[in-house]
């Protein structure tokens, strides 16, 4: 997936945007969620503790009252007498009973039983069960335990029987059992005592010492929840594991041995979590959407100029050099387009030049071909002239025509490069002709290093230079000399030097051959041609070099060209 996504530019942009937005978002969400959760849980826990304390306080207060009342009654002579003898002033007993239980009768009834468990006095109507077993239940418990002791009802759901009973054995000062005090709390009493203390969202369950239900604010929980709580406790499992929705807080009321279990809804139940996750997921989704849109938009913005460049390059490949990319932006891409346009223009110029050169070359070739027309006819004619002149005893004509025929043959030979030795031979023929023409008014010498004799030079490269020296340099000079020297410049270059002792050059012509304009070099067309040939063949680094001779006499023309041998002609 990764490679597929990141293969395209757009995909990479998308991934980058996605990471750039999603990672901080997720981290932030996680952090916020955690902080939020901790904070809420803490608050809720504090609230629950408070509720629990309220409930516990209410119970504590009530129990303290009961203990006080029990103490008061257990030390009362009148009550003893009445219970022991079954006689006595009823009103007096009631008066003691009501005094002792002042403020407590709102949520409990108080009964006095004699030692047989027979009911005698009560703060309310006589109970339906006039006698309680002294070996069972509350009286049994009171018999076994010292002080006020509490026993839960067998049936939590029954509103007609007391859910919680406190019992205490009443002893005479002599230590004999005289009767029992029984404090009964019915469901309504407990409700009155505890309602409003434990928070409206919460549920309170009162459990006995053995975690049997005593009172449930919501009666249905006695059957559904209380056994589960007990089972969970016996299994040693945390109560909070019972359900996802509720947490439990347990507190012990020490004087009764009762446990208060507060069930409170979890702050982070499924709904809340689902909501928070939904919000986070929506944010992430928005991020993804924005990333997609941004990457599309941005890539389109970058992609359009790139696309235009791409198309333009395609056009160039198709050899359409008139193409231009519109310049509508100033950023890097605009610069790129500008450069591209420049490049296309340069390319076009180059191509045009190339075409021009090619055209010139073609023209030259055509001229050359024209020059080669009927060469044999000319040679044969010259041969004929040679024989006729020999027959007629005109030796100069014979020599001249022989030389001319050789030169002509040399000129029209198809090779463009010839060994230096051959070039020099032809040059000597030309000199022979010129000597006849000019009545041998100069001397001609050659100094060719033997190792250079076979190196290749362009055909007819020396003749124009020498001709120039004869026609312009030696004009009107007695004892003229022309020397042709071939020497090695360095590892891969040679120079051919033509020296004369004639009139010399105008000083401004010294240096590299400067008259490269054909029109301006009339009269020196030979030098121009040689220079052009050298440069065309070998490049701009080569060509002619003009110099004045030693002691200001004569001229030196030097042609520099690369050292080449026979096998390299192909190159």
């Amino acid at each position, binding site marked *: 997936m990764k490679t597929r996504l990141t293969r395209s530019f757009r995909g990479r942009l998308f991934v980058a945007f996605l990471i750039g937005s999603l990672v901080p978002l997720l981290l932030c969400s996680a952090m916020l969620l955690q902080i939020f959760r901790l904070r809420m849980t803490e608050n809720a826990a504090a609230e629950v503790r408070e509720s629990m304390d309220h409930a516990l306080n209410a119970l504590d207060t009530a129990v303290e009252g009961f203990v006080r009342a029990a103490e008061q009654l257990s030390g009362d002579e009148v009550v003893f007498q009445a219970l022991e003898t079954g006689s006595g002033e009823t009103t007096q007993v009631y008066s003691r009973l009501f005094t002792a239980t002042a403020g407590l009768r709102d949520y409990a009834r108080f009964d006095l039983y004699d030692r047989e468990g027979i009911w005698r006095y009560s703060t309310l109507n006589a109970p339906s069960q006039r006698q309680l077993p002294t*070996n069972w239940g509350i009286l049994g418990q009171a018999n076994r335990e010292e002080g006020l002791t509490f026993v839960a009802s067998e049936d939590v759901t029954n509103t007609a029987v007391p859910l919680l009973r406190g019992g205490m054995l009443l002893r005479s000062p002599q230590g004999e059992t005289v009767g029992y005090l029984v404090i009964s709390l019915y469901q309504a009493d407990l409700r009155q005592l505890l309602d409003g203390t434990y928070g409206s969202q919460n549920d309170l369950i009162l459990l006995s010492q*053995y*975690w*049997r239900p005593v009172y449930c604010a919501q009666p249905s929980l006695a059957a559904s929840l209380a056994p589960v709580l007990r089972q969970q406790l016996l299994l*040693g499992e945390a109560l909070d594991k019972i359900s996802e929705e509720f947490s439990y807080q347990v507190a012990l009321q020490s004087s009764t041995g009762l446990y208060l279990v507060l069930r409170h809804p979890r702050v982070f139940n499924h709904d809340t979590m689902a909501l928070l996750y939904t919000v986070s997921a929506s944010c992430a989704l928005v991020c993804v959407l924005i990333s997609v849109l941004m990457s599309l938009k941005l890539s389109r913005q970058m992609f359009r100029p790139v696309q235009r460049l791409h198309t333009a390059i395609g056009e160039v490949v198709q050899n359409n050099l008139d193409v231009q990319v519109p310049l509508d932006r100033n950023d890097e891409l605009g610069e790129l387009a500008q450069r591209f346009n420049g490049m296309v223009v340069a390319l076009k110029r180059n191509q045009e030049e190339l075409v021009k050169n090619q055209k010139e070359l073609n023209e030259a070739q055509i001229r050359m071909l024209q020059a080669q027309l009927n060469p044999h006819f000319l040679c044969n004619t010259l041969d004929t002239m040679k024989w006729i002149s020999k027959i007629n005893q005109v030796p100069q004509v014979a020599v001249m025509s022989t030389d001319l025929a050789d030169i002509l043959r040399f000129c029209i030979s198809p090779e463009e490069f010839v060994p230096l030795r051959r070039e020099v031979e032809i040059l000597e023929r030309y000199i022979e002709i010129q000597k006849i023409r000019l009545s041998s008014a100069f001397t001609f010498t050659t100094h060719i290093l033997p190792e250079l004799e076979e190196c290749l030079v362009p055909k007819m490269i020396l003749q124009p230079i020498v001709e120039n020296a004869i026609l312009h340099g030696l004009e009107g000079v007695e004892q003229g000399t022309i020397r042709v020297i071939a020497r090695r410049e360095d590892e891969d270059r040679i120079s051919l030097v033509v020296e004369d002792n004639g009139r010399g050059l105008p000083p401004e012509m010294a240096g590299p051959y400067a008259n490269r304009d054909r029109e301006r070099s009339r009269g020196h067309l030979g030098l121009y041609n040689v220079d052009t040939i050298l440069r065309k063949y070998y490049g701009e680094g080569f060509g002619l070099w003009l110099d004045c001779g030693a002691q200001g006499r004569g001229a030196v023309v030097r042609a520099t060209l690369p050292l080449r041998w026979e096998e390299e002609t192909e190159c």
Partner: protein
Amino acid sequence: MWAVLALALCTLVSCTPALEGEDLACAPVEEERLVVYTSHKQEVWWPIVKEFEERTGIWVDVVTGGSSELLQRIAKEEQSPRADVMFGGGVESLASYEDSFAPYISREAEAIPEQFQDPDGLWTPFSSLPVVLIYNTKLVGEGQVTRWSDLLSPYFQGKIAFTDPAVSGSSYTSLVTMICALGGDAEEDLHRFAANLDGRQLESSGDVLTLVADGTDWVGVTLEETALKRIAAGDDIAMVYPTDGTSSVPDGSALVRGAPHEENAKRFLDFTISRDVQQLVAEQSYRRPVRRDVEPAEELADLEELLLVDYNVDWASQNRENLLMSWAFFLGGEEEA
């Protein structure tokens, strides 16, 4: 990069609240626990268990179920027993699972007549439950049903409510009682009775009362306690003790072999036959207490006046398989496993 993403997601998801272990502090230690399997109804076991907890400080974990089911479960858990006490079930059912139980002779045994005691102490009796016949008072005249042999009469053919003895322990007790009372050949008696049932038996012992009360069946076989309870509730039922003999086989409890809380289990067994509990049983139900010093409820006929068959618990438990097989055969049903 993906790791960061994964990390973020993990943090996001890891919202499990720390568990608060404080509420476990009030759980009882092992020495203060007892596990009781009981087939008694809640109205029977609950006051006893509650009082036991109050008196001893032992936390009782009660598992309820049918007696056969619980006995099988105890047998299955033989290697590592969970239960300490099996409370409830006819003593011959308990005796037939003798491998699962350990003998224990209660400290209260002296107060109990020998007829309700197992010499080996394998089980401890709880209450005695004579077998009775019931009839619908609108459909059957008084005196028409007085003895077991009446159930073989063609007059009642197909009108007898009788529970499958393979399912109900009390029904099996009734069947054995009948065989003893008729005194003839056991197979012959079974055959005749099965024929008179028209091959029909009930799935639950509670159905006997219901079907007789609503007139579907005319007569039925059940236990005294159940019958009296329904009569007291006002159903059109009358009860007779068979004049040719009834039995008074107790139901009981037994100490599970290898019980994890053996001492507590023994205290519980003692408690079930203590005077206080037996008195409660006598006062609050139609069960007959098994102690000499506790009188049964006034409504109950004196046991001395009834003709009791010579019911041999050991024989009944040892021949259970055979008898049930014959019974199933005679009833035309499929062979019982």
